[in-house]
């Protein structure tokens, strides 16, 4: 493993670029949703960028990731081309799931990205199953299982903690605590709000991390990943983060004040924090930052263009992918 991230300017610049890509991408998605180009449920990741960017950089390409329906950022950071994700959002045949999944169901098996799951908490046992397969096949891989603090009240999460610990599965449970389960603030739904302790009864070590600080996220993640990869069994991390937008595009956000959101934006924004740090330390100058901004904007614009001009799935796709043919399954 390379040097600590605080000392690795290239890595920090990369974090900046990736977080910015997620931010601009999601902003574009919000805009396109407003124009009627994207349908159904659509959950944006704006504000939480540091979590997935810092964590994904701590695992290998052959490791696995599974998450909930708020999955655009996880897909982007795993390396799925932005155009394929955007085309999925507009329901086009060139989408990453051929237009059959939409916003909540991005998958890319080649990149170990297992989705994109719409039932709150269901990805947690599935993720443990992926970790089970990694261990069964004696591979030194790990699985990152992302879920929100809302899902942390689902029974199947604790059923999974029990089995994962019992069988020492190489799983990292990531609670993305963005403070609101839809409109329910954490204090209104949780008896005991320190979610990092939720695995302790099962013998699962947990840590709490400032999920708005990408460096802190990454450092904590490297440590957890290394321990899990070494066979110590599953670990849990609570990422304290915040989402700026509503739960989904149809959320009027009546459960908190504008002022609260504004304060977080001003004081804790993950991208602004890193930008200040890079500028203060002289790692990067204004011109280079502007170049990154331009670059990211161009990527997003191209993805949006692709997503609007690509054809819808052929109608013959309606009845495909329901079953695997017998001969296709012998592998």
């Amino acid at each position, binding site marked *: 493993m390379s040097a600590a991230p605080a000392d690795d300017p290239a890595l920090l610049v990369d974090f900046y670029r990736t977080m910015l890509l997620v931010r601009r991408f999601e902003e574009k998605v919000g805009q396109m949703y407003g124009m009627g180009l994207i349908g159904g449920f659509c959950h944006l990741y704006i504000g939480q960028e540091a979590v997935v960017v810092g964590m994904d950089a701590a695992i290998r390409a052959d490791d*696995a990731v*599974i998450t909930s329906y708020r999955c655009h950022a996880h897909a982007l950071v795993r390396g799925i081309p932005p155009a394929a994700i955007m085309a999925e959002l507009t329901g086009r045949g060139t*989408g*990453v*799931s*051929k*237009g*059959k*999944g939409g916003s909540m*169901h991005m*998958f*890319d*098996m080649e990149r170990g990205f*297992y*989705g*994109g*799951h*719409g*039932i709150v908490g*269901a990805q*947690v*046992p*599935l*993720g*443990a*199953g*992926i970790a*089970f*397969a*990694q261990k*069964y*096949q004696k591979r030194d891989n790990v699985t990152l299982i992302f879920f929100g603090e809302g899902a942390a009240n689902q*029974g*199947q999460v604790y*059923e*999974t903690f*029990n*089995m994962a610990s*019992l069988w020492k599965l190489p799983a990292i449970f990531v609670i993305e605590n963005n403070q609101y389960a839809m409109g329910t603030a954490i204090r209104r739904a949780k008896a005991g709000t320190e979610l990092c302790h939720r695995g302790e009864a099962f013998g699962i070590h947990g840590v709490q991390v400032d999920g708005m600080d990408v460096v802190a996220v990454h450092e904590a993640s490297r440590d957890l990943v290394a321990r899990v990869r070494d066979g110590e069994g599953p670990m849990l991390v609570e990422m304290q983060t915040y989402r700026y937008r509503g739960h989904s595009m149809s959320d009027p956000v009546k459960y908190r004040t504008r002022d609260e959101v504004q304060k977080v934006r001003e004081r804790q924004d993950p991208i602004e924090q890193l930008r200040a740090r890079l500028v203060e330390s002289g790692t990067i100058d204004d011109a280079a930052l502007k170049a990154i901004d331009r670059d990211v904007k161009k990527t997003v614009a191209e993805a949006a263009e692709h997503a609007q001009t690509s054809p819808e799935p052929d109608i013959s796709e309606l009845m*495909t*992918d*329901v*079953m*695997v*043919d*017998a001969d*296709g*399954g*012998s592998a």
Partner: protein
Amino acid sequence: MVEMTVRQALRDAMAEEMRRDDRVLLIGEEVAEYQGAYKVSQGLLEEFGADRVIDTPITEHGFAGLAIGAAMAGLRPINEFMTFNFAMQAMDQIINSAAKTLYMSGGQVRCPIVLRGPNGAAARVAAQHSQDYASWFAHVPGLKVIAPWSATDAKGLLKAAVRDPNPVIFLENEILYGVSFDVGDEDVVLDIGKAAIERTGRDVTVVGYSITVSRALEAAGILAEEGVEAEVINLRTIRPLDIATIIDSIARTNRLVMVEEGWAFAGIGAEVIAAVCHGGFDHLDAPPARVSAADVPLPYAANLEEAALPRADQVVRAVREVCYV
């Protein structure tokens, strides 16, 4: 010709598939050290070890989800439910994860899993432990649903299910576990989606699956003494349904009686009859009839239980009705 019980056939099928493919594993409650709550996994722990024969905590929602995730990641789990009544705890994972993810992912995420266990009524265990779930699962695109009757069915279809690249619901029957059958070819792997004609006859087609095939055959014996020759079809697979075999039979007999252990409403019989009315309308000389469970939760008292489940004499009555005798 070898005689074996359904229990033994299931066990042998699993053992053979586990020998053939080391991605195959058995996971569920009491499958390992207890040797199976119904002794179906007897000896498997000894042969394959604790890495491949895995006792779980009592946590159906969790372990079914875990097994489904493992299948997505390339393993071929056989997930045993102690009974399918407990699979209701895992219904979300079976329907929303196992059945739908292939489609939602545009064909990327496969889920080659077998979810098996006893289904339907056992004996005197009352309503929560006695239900036929065939129509629940068969409703969903993305799942295959199998309901074996004989030892040949059990062995040949379980092997086929393990080899199938899709999620397969495998509905066994506790009462049939101890029943012995002649098994013609021990190595046979049957085709999923093919019904079997267990008895030929020219006067009426009686269709059943799982234990109701026994009821249909009993009825056919009684009817033969009255000079009515019933053809008995064992569906074997509920989905995909082999409607061609049924219609082919009705083209000769012109009459249909469907026997199922589930409730009639929105049941497998309803589906079979709809398909026959569509594809074989002009063959019908009488409205198709159904024999099914009484429309109540299954009672405990012996006489009430007997009255609630489909019986051979009801099949005989239904046959007489459709034959206008």
